[in-house]
């Protein structure tokens, strides 16, 4: 009735492992380049080294992780493409993304402290990221509610879409506030005037490295979800067997009582 727990094919296991290794290597390279090789900024001194991981983390958290989460939710809700895979993908992506969002806040805060003098400043990016974090935590809370898996998937998909719709609105409204954040220089081109030379290459490497880390974590998390759902399928088979056994016992015990002769 339900598919047996699929063993992870060797090829897939190795692919994921390769991604993990690549992630580790590129991250190490970024760290090495970032800390030892590139020069310190004139104004921000050594603190600028955070630029190699903070914007990538922010980008991954908001656009990649949450974007995949929203996309997966839409694809799950839309009848034609509905498949449990999208629900798993969305949930895994947002879960991993929450970690990245929290990291965005932490690295941003660390960066801001010496520059702005405070641990937390109500600037546009930080505030909208904080709101995003709370929305993601809400999604996770919804996910933890016990119950029918299909209802749960539906609820979470809807919540993700509502939040996704809100994100640009939050972003614009907070940006219209005063902002202390740097402009979008980092996200434009890697070779924009404010960052050049070896810094640009390191930044690019940073993007690649953080993205790889995210992808690896996502794949592992997806795998866990798949296993969990396969387990549920196996449990269902067991439950069906028990139900039938219970039914047969009852039928044997219950007297026909003149209703219908066998």
């Amino acid at each position, binding site marked *: 009735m339900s598919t047996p727990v699929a063993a992870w094919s060797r090829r897939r296991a190795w692919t994921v492992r390769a991604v993990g290794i690549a992630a580790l290597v590129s991250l190490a390279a970024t760290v090495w380049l970032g800390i030892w090789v590139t020069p310190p900024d004139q104004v921000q001194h050594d603190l600028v080294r955070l630029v190699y991981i903070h914007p990538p983390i922010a980008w991954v958290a908001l656009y990649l992780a949450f974007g995949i989460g929203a996309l997966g939710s839409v694809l799950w*809700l839309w009848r034609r493409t509905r498949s449990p895979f999208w629900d798993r993908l969305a949930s895994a992506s947002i879960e991993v993304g929450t970690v990245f969002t929290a990291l965005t806040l932490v690295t941003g805060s660390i960066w801001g402290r010496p520059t702005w003098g405070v641990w937390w400043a109500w600037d546009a990016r930080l505030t909208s990221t904080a*709101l995003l974090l*709370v*929305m993601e*935590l*809400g999604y996770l*809370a*919804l996910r933890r*509610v016990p*119950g029918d898996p*299909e*209802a*749960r998937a*539906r*609820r979470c*998909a*809807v*919540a993700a*879409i*509502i*939040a996704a*719709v*809100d994100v640009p*609105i*939050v972003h*614009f*409204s*907070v940006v*219209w*506030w005063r902002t202390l954040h740097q402009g979008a220089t980092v996200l434009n081109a890697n070779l924009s005037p404010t960052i050049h030379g070896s810094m640009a290459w390191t930044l690019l490497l940073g993007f690649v490295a953080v993205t790889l880390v995210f992808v690896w974590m996502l794949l592992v998390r997806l795998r866990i979800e798949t296993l969990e759902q396969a387990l549920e399928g196996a449990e269902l088979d067991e439950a069906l067997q028990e139900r039938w056994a219970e039914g047969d016992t009852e039928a044997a015990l219950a007297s026909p009582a003149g209703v219908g002769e066998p």
Partner: protein
Amino acid sequence: MWRDSVLVAGKDLRIELRSRVVLNQVAPFSLVVLVLFAFTLGPSRAPMAKAAPGLFWVTVLFAAVLAVQRSVSLESSEARDGLRLSGLDPAGVFLGKAMALMAELVVLEVLLGAGVVLFYGVHVRSALDLVAACVAGTVGLAAAGTLYGALAGGLRVRETLLPFLLLPVAAPVLLAGTRAWQAALGTAAGGAGDPWLRLLCVFAAVYVALGVVIFGPILEAS
């Protein structure tokens, strides 16, 4: 869809008229909140007048959470079955409940607005702007509230989950509403209230549209 929404809105409002929960409980609660804020801001009127727009909108937000909880609790789990069984168009149900919620919130806001003017001693520069901001913001709040209310509706943890889900999403309304009111009251630090009003309208439009489209799946998930 419109017929269904009018039917549902009528039903919700009739129940409210009978039971008067919003009027008798939520309204006094909001007024109490206003008074408590006044305590914290000190007896002199100047800081109160300055903080008035923000306090107004925060109080509206809290009152909205309570009103949404009430709107959702009208449909107990059996009644939700009944709602689904009735064959009503889900989009109609959404619009109906949102409209009823909006009516209740508007009444609350009139009360609160009067309270703010009275207690905090603000001077109203442009009443039309105030009203416009309130209307636009309330439509958005009612829509988002109905959505999240239905989403968390059938769950046992609804009371604690709903504020957690709704408030972050409603943050833009809080922000824009406060700025719009500041402009209308003449206490704005800088900048006209127009862009904020537009933001409120965008929020409202987006969430009403979203609700109409997505309420069907939400009802199924309970």
